[in-house]
């Protein structure tokens, strides 16, 4: 009984602490207020304007040889972990024309949590492996689309480790070493960042 009460109290404290921590970090995010009503009426949701941020997401170029960054709008979130989740969810959706998706279509994000040293653990569903077309370059693009979309947009996140179905994995498709959290790596992005629309 006492233990259960203690756990309950701890849970409340944890939630309060998390909100406090995340609120302290969140203002650093490049927040963009809702679009002006006159210019984009269709974008507004009935429940009120939704806050968005601009984030750089990573897609496969037309020649298939690079992974350029593309500016897209991502829903704003109050906490760093939640913002990270929104960014990965956006990265997992269909790419804008004319780009290709570096991640197999339909790959779900199971969970995402952030360690004290700024490592993000991105837990993807097994589809990312079973539906992966293979190939070293394709695997590098999948991995670095995830790693870069977090590390580039959220400076608080320094390294990213990809988990599959809740487990640490050696590799995704037999090449890239996923046993350690990986740092940002822009060598496949080529130089310029392009903008959609």
């Amino acid at each position: 009984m006492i233990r259960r009460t203690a756990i309950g109290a701890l849970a409340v404290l944890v939630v309060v602490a998390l909100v406090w921590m995340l609120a302290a970090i969140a203002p650093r995010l490049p927040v963009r207020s809702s679009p002006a009503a006159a210019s984009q009426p269709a974008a507004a949701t009935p429940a009120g304007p939704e806050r968005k941020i601009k984030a750089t997401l990573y897609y496969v170029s037309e020649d298939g040889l690079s992974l350029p960054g593309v500016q897209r709008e991502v829903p704003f979130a109050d906490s760093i972990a939640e913002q990270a989740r929104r960014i990965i969810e956006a990265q997992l959706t269909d790419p804008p024309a004319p780009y290709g998706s570096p991640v197999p279509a339909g790959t779900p994000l199971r969970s995402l949590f952030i360690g004290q040293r700024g490592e993000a653990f991105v837990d993807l569903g097994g589809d990312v492996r079973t539906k992966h077309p293979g190939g070293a370059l394709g695997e590098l693009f999948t991995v670095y689309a995830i790693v870069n979309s977090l590390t580039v947009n959220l400076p608080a996140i320094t390294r990213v480790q990809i988990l599959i179905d809740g487990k640490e994995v050696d590799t995704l498709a037999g090449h890239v070493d996923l046993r350690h959290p990986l740092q940002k790596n822009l060598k496949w992005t080529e130089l310029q960042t392009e903008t959609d629309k």
Partner: protein
Amino acid sequence: MSSRRFCSAAAALLIALLHSASAAQPPASAAPYTVLSRDGRRPLAARIMSGQEMFALDDLARLFNVVVREDTAAGGLTVTAGTETIALSPGQSLASLNGRLISLPAPPLREGRTWYVPVDFVGRALGPALGGHVELRKPSRLILVGDIRAPRIVGRMETLGSLARLTLDIAPATPHTVTQEGTKLTVRFEADMLDAALPATASPDLVANVRPGDLPASIAIDLGPRFASFRTTDTPGDRGGARLVIDVMAQTTDAQPQPTTPPPPEGPPLIDLAPSGTLRAIVIDAGHGGAEDGARGASGALEKQITLSVARRLKAALEGRLGLRVILTRDADATVGLDERAALANNNKADLFVSLHVNASPRAGTAGAEVFYLSLDEYGDAAERVAHADSDLLPVFGGGTRDIELILWDMAQARYIKESAALAQSIEASLRQRVPMSARAIQQAPFRVLVGANMPAVLVEMGFITNPAQEKQLQSDEFQNLVVQALVESISRFRDARSSTRLTGAR
């Protein structure tokens, strides 16, 4: 700080929330590990459970003086070492220590009343909790506790005319002496024990046997009947290590009309007779295989079939034309782990490791071959230390020092990046004359199969199977033979360049 406590509580809570039970499978036993400390050596049983090597927490509690508690209400496990507590949760491949999440290769598993944790738990969680003086050395199945000095020594032996040369690569560099006592040479190291892989003798009339010495950290060389004298040469080895070369020389004064040609060693012919004899064995790795198809083309071609076909052709060509000993990581449609592939090369003391692959892209138009070697950036400080360790002696708990480079044996490739880059360039140049190349023909990436290779290592992507024209090419005899020609030419060139630098470097 209170935020730290909040974080650890948050981590524990997250773990508890994400809890999901995984079915334990009946364990299979694996070879035991040996725990080495000032108190001596003790065995530590390991078991294979769900494909992972695991230790029983009770064994760890006994050996490392830690307390294991199971919290049945919260469904968690805690391991307390002094003032530090590690939290574990069934179903989660994570541990938490001081609010820091530590990733594990598998969740803890229960069998009966005993809990098991992956062996990596010792190096990643228990070591830091105990103050960092526990080191897990998987390839040698050793756990070093405290300031135990156990340099890793890899020996190889060769016959050069009338002398037998024993080369010992020592990591980290460790002071040593070589003395002759009667018909025996003794190499003594300033260490507590040796983690040594010693070769069989190559010329029994000069060196009868190379074996562990009678003292704990020594190697004995039993001399043969033709022994006359010996000389030793110490050189700095690949970064952080040292190389000791012991030449055992035969009598040349007495009546031996012609030094008889050394009997050919067993097995396939070696390149011994060629002047450029520094490259002997090469491991060719046919990518994927068995359950892992690798990439697949639109008309159904499989990467694993193409890589195996090219690997077999390459083996025949290297053996026939260059006289190299060639070992394939697989010679059938078999599933082979990435660790096993590098381990095969390390255990066979191969001089080169070439992994063959076929690329894939979401874009059908993408085409061309690419050559990869390991990138170290992704491994952060750890790789830097392996690559540039000039015997970085760090103080350790309990007094004494320890070379930090020891800890990272599973990143052996860090020492060979320059040679791997040179090999990649040589291969790229030869491929370019024969097959289409990608716009990024040489690249670096954190590839799992390369990082553990203790020799120059590259990964060759022969072309894109997702490109319909290349899919046809990759399956054709003509294209496969062009790739083989390019690899034979470049490996031959690499061998010549390497042996000439070795020769000039030795003088």
